[in-house]
């Protein structure tokens, strides 16, 4: 009844391990080929002038990304300012205030559904709600009929002009991207807040702190590394988003930056331009890559690749930053 212990069945199915290994490496190999091809194609076009020139259709060798860099910069700043407070607020409500009500459950299910909505559908939403505002401000439309005047915008002190409808401006793009990244930011924040142990909250409450004080002084600071990691990762996804921006009218060819701010110091020296930049037309880095990729001439291949290199460098920097924050916080905080 006793068979030998010296058989060799471990080699059975060994091929399967190699197949799995091959699958894993082939995905990574694809990434390596992609990066190599792009680097090789774009190597001749990377220079300082590529970062400081505008796009150029007559002489491609002079084309540059300045408008896209500033456009993406403004999009990121505004998306950050809109989505982070709202996202953190929503997550705190869901985690700290309404943990098991029916409304919280509906919101939770809705969040995971929203996360699965294709980005281009957000583009349709942004186009209708922000860019055109359902056409109610158009000539002869409902607003004009009701007020007797065609409303073109709101004019505030300090020279701030808000066009109505918002049109194909930076703010339309930023609002659309904010809606797009919000579900991701909320879920990441929820996870970070949930990871803060209950004992901390109880200790603070026992010392006479209110719930709100506990959240602001203890829970949020403790959860901040996790929140920031989630925020940076989702913003880096937003920076590469192209489809919704095409929908909400980012220009595929533009030789100007928002409010003509071309140097960082002008953000301070031209305050009036700075507050109006969100309401100006724009283009963005991935949009420029898309528009160059569509050009038939061979010269544009190098430019498109150079654009991709800049875009991917920005992305990787943001990803690296997120990983750095995550690792650092893991070293410092261990519950």
């Amino acid at each position, binding site marked *: *009844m*006793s*068979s*030998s*212990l*010296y*058989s*060799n*069945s*471990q080699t059975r199915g060994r091929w399967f391990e190699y197949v799995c290994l091959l699958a894993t490496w082939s995905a990574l190999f694809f990434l390596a080929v992609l990066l190599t091809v792009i680097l090789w194609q774009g190597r001749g076009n990377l220079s300082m002038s590529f970062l400081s020139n505008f796009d150029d259709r007559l002489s491609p060798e002079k084309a540059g990304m300045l408008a896209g860099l500033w456009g993406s910069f403004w999009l990121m700043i505004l998306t950050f300012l809109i989505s982070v407070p709202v996202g953190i607020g929503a997550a705190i409500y869901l985690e700290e205030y309404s943990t098991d009500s029916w409304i919280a459950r509906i919101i939770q299910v809705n969040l995971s559904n929203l996360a699965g909505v294709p980005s281009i559908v957000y583009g349709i939403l942004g186009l209708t709600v922000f860019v055109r505002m359902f056409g109610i401000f158009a000539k002869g439309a409902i607003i004009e009929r009701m007020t007797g005047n065609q409303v073109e915008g709101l004019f505030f002190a300090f020279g701030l002009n808000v066009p109505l409808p918002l049109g194909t401006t930076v703010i339309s793009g930023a609002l659309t991207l904010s809606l797009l990244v919000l579900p991701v930011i909320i879920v990441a924040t929820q996870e970070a807040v949930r990871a803060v142990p209950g004992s901390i909250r109880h200790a603070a409450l026992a010392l006479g702190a209110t719930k709100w004080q506990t959240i602001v002084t203890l829970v949020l600071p403790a959860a901040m590394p996790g929140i920031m990691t989630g925020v940076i990762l989702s913003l880096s996804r937003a920076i590469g988003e192209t489809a919704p921006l095409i929908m909400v009218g980012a220009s595929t060819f533009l030789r100007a930056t928002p409010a003509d701010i071309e140097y960082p110091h002008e953000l301070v020296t031209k305050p009036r331009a700075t507050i109006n930049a969100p309401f100006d037309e724009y283009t963005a880095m991935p949009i420029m890559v898309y528009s160059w990729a569509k050009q038939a001439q061979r010269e544009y291949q190098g430019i498109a690749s150079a654009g991709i290199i800049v875009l991917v460098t920005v992305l990787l920097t943001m990803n690296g930053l997120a990983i750095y924050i995550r690792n650092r916080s893991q070293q410092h905080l261990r519950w």
Partner: protein
Amino acid sequence: MFPTMTAEKPISLKPQVPLREPSAATDDVQRAIKLETRHLDFYYGNNQALHDISLQIPERSVTAFIGPSGCGKSTFLRTLNRMNDIIEGTRHTGDVLLEGTDIFDPRVDVVALRKRVGMVFQKSTPFPKSIFDNIAYGPRVAGLKDLSRLTEIVESSLKRAALWDEVKDRMRDSAMALSGGQQQRLCIARALATEPDVLLMDEPASALDPASTTRVEDLIFDLKSNYTIVIVTHNMQQAARVSDRTAFFYQGHLVEVGPTQELFTRPKEKQTEDYITGRFG
């Protein structure tokens, strides 16, 4: 027949007087040694979990390991079919012999070893498959494809595990639908289907209700005429009921081993006495 006791008797093993054991099924025959460990040390990373364990396990009998939680009895059980291999960062020194063959010999195929030294766990672990597929799992991974042969094995295994009558009409149902006690007997039947000669049981009845526990204990009693059974239990009454020999572990050491009757009535070590009289553990 009078197989020889091996000469290398471990220090902790008390001289074996002719056994007068309580259970009716045991005869007074001295049995061949099925499994033996010699100076076994075992480590999880830098933590030493077992210290110099030397123990002999005779064939066709039930050996029980008792001791407080964390005493190393489960760890020791799991070295007997090298289940600890799948945990990262474990290592051992010393020998484990199955019928005289060192199971850690590099030429030994661990898969073949585990087919001969089966194991049943504390928590019943039915695969999310049908009852039939659960029992047929072992023979199938061993390469058996013939359906009529598989059916035979499934039937005989279930009969040996005293589960056949309860499940014979629902072989295609999911094993997850069985009750806790049935699931555990299913796992025993599944282990028997690979035709092992040794059956290791890690607290097989601790998650069961009293009625199911009795059935499992009866089953163990029936099985020992064909199998060498090693059972870890935290329940001393259970050890007393089912086992022929009992080994007491404490803090990674084998304190005492001997015929169950003797160990429970005339323990030789103070620690054993304290434990079985309930002063700790």
